[in-house]
């Protein structure tokens, strides 16, 4: 039987697929950029959905991983462009698959360090400490002049993918779609796995999970690292979209925006991140076109959602989750 949620999801996939066609027919290549933004922010939010939706980890520091991924892309590209070696004499690269792997490794390592310390705490402490760590990386990026410091880092040519012309908007959009699809599949696989069950169990009742012999700390640490890796890849794509990275990608506003996305869409729902990203980008485009002060209205809307419509847009369209 097709549930309402499945129906919403199918509609959403069709809508996303329709964007490139509509852009072609209406001759509006800007729509492609909008859809690419939706896919990238959606991917970052998928990572957050694993940690927050399944694991109940409320953090305010995930922009750190988004920014780290972005800086990996930027730094590798600049070194490849200039032909200068990096740390340990390694060369840079302008190939996306390598960049993604490095982004996954670096953000995973950073997350392992931060997670090992912050997951010893919980609740408000966890929120504040993840925020503080992200801020530490943010200030480091600002004060370290080698890669642009406060001004950020531009690389003029988008990185490449074998056999694909990434400079054109459409192929790049399709790459982002593919990665978003991979992220969503990973989310689904994790949710149904033993690991996902343990993670959700740790959210619902930590003591019971511990009593079955599973360490909630280790489960959460793994979730934290997976989350950071996905967010890091999204950050690398985001840098490639703009051909620019700056400390703004690391700032706590970015963390806030990503949480906003997922709450607008629906926390813990499979397509919540995508719905939220779509809604957010459309709001930014539409409200931002009407008024400079669109953030004021975004804030008021967000207040409305938090206080009165807690299921997000998917909750409104598809009803409550069947189990949770």
């Amino acid at each position, binding site marked *: 039987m097709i549930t309402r949620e499945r129906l919403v999801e199918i509609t959403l996939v069709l809508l996303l697929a329709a964007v490139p066609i509509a852009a072609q027919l209406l001759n509006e290549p800007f729509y492609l950029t909008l859809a690419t933004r939706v896919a990238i922010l959606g991917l970052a939010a998928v990572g957050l959905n694993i940690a927050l939706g399944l694991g109940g980890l409320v953090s305010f520091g995930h922009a750190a991983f988004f920014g780290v991924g972005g800086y990996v892309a930027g730094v590798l590209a600049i070194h490849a462009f200039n032909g200068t070696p990096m740390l340990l004499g390694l060369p840079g690269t302008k190939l996306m698959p390598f960049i993604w792997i490095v982004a996954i490794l670096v953000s995973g390592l950073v997350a392992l360090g931060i997670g090992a310390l912050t997951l010893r705490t919980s609740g408000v402490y966890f929120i504040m400490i993840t925020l503080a760590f992200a801020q*530490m990386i943010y200030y480091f990026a600002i004060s370290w002049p080698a890669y642009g410091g406060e001004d950020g880092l531009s690389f003029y040519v988008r990185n490449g993918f074998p056999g694909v012309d990434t400079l054109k908007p459409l192929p790049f959009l399709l790459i982002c779609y593919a990665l978003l699809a991979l992220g969503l599949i990973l989310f689904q696989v994790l949710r149904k796995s033993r690991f996902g069950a343990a993670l959700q169990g740790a959210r619902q009742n930590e003591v019971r999970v511990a009593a079955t012999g599973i360490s909630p700390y280790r489960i959460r640490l793994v979730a934290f690292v997976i989350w950071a890796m996905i967010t890091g890849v999204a950050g690398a794509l985001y840098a490639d979209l703009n051909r620019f990275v700056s400390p703004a990608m690391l700032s706590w506003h970015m963390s*806030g925006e990503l949480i906003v996305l997922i709450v607008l869409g629906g926390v813990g729902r499979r397509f919540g991140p995508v719905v939220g990203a779509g809604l957010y980008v459309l709001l930014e485009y539409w409200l931002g076109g009407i008024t400079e002060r669109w953030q004021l209205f975004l804030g008021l809307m967000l207040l409305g959602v938090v206080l009165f419509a807690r299921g997000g847009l998917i909750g409104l369209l598809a009803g409550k989750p069947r189990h949770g």
Partner: protein
Amino acid sequence: MSSALLVEQLLNGLQLGVMLYLMAAGLTLIFGVMGLINLAHGSLYMVGAFACAAVAAWTGSFFLALIGALIAAAAAGALMEILVIRRLYGRDHLDQVLATFALILVFSEATRWLFGPFPLYLDIPAILQGTVPLPGGSRYQIYRLAIIGVGIAVAIGLYLLISRTRLGMRIRAGESDREMIAALGVDIRTLYTVVFALGAGLAGLAGAMIGPLQSVQVGMGEPVLILAFVVIVIGGIGSNRGALIGAILVGVVDTMGRALLPGVLSGLLGPSAAATTGSSLASMLIYLVMVVILVFRPRGLFPAGS
């Protein structure tokens, strides 16, 4: 580094610490009594600074402006509590974080709407202009000393308020058992509004006092808010004493690190490398301190209720 410069930097650190205390005291009080994390506390700091600038421009008196800032921030806090925060007490932290993040967006845009995109500037009041000599031969701004004095006075006042008055007794009772004091006939809703307005007023006072030292602009509250979080994490959530000691520690370590690290490192790395490494390290220093403290004392230096 000469001893005069050292004393000067120590005082600067103390002044930063006092400002952080005013922010952290409100945050930790609100968390201790209501169990609420308020990201929009930095917006109340900003409201204080803007109200101070507006009243000072209108009346020409900085002291009237300070009072105006206190009232404006406390009123904004009370309004915030009644309209939004009140609905969040029973909710989980995610809802609290989101709603108060939304409040930041609203406050920042509304302030930009009212006052325009350009920063405002405040003058140091005539009485507090000028400098006093320090041991070692350099001179120090009277205004900064005045800030330190106000901060210490507030710290003592808050301690007396919480430990010696009827309101303070209710606040302490609310921290330990809210159902019980409601059952004893205390109007807990009003008490929460009063506590929130008190915290807001302290944040507004901090924002107003910093106005003459920095420019008054949208977004000025956010760096201070994050430092105040570090202070609370170090000091222990819900502890007034922890907030004071954590704030002074963070203020002094941050200021001294920025002043001393490049000099210390230049012996090892050479002057130009030391300048960049030193400034990067200095900007991370307080977070490193926080990590070390967390490893040994996961609930902060002075955990509440111990």
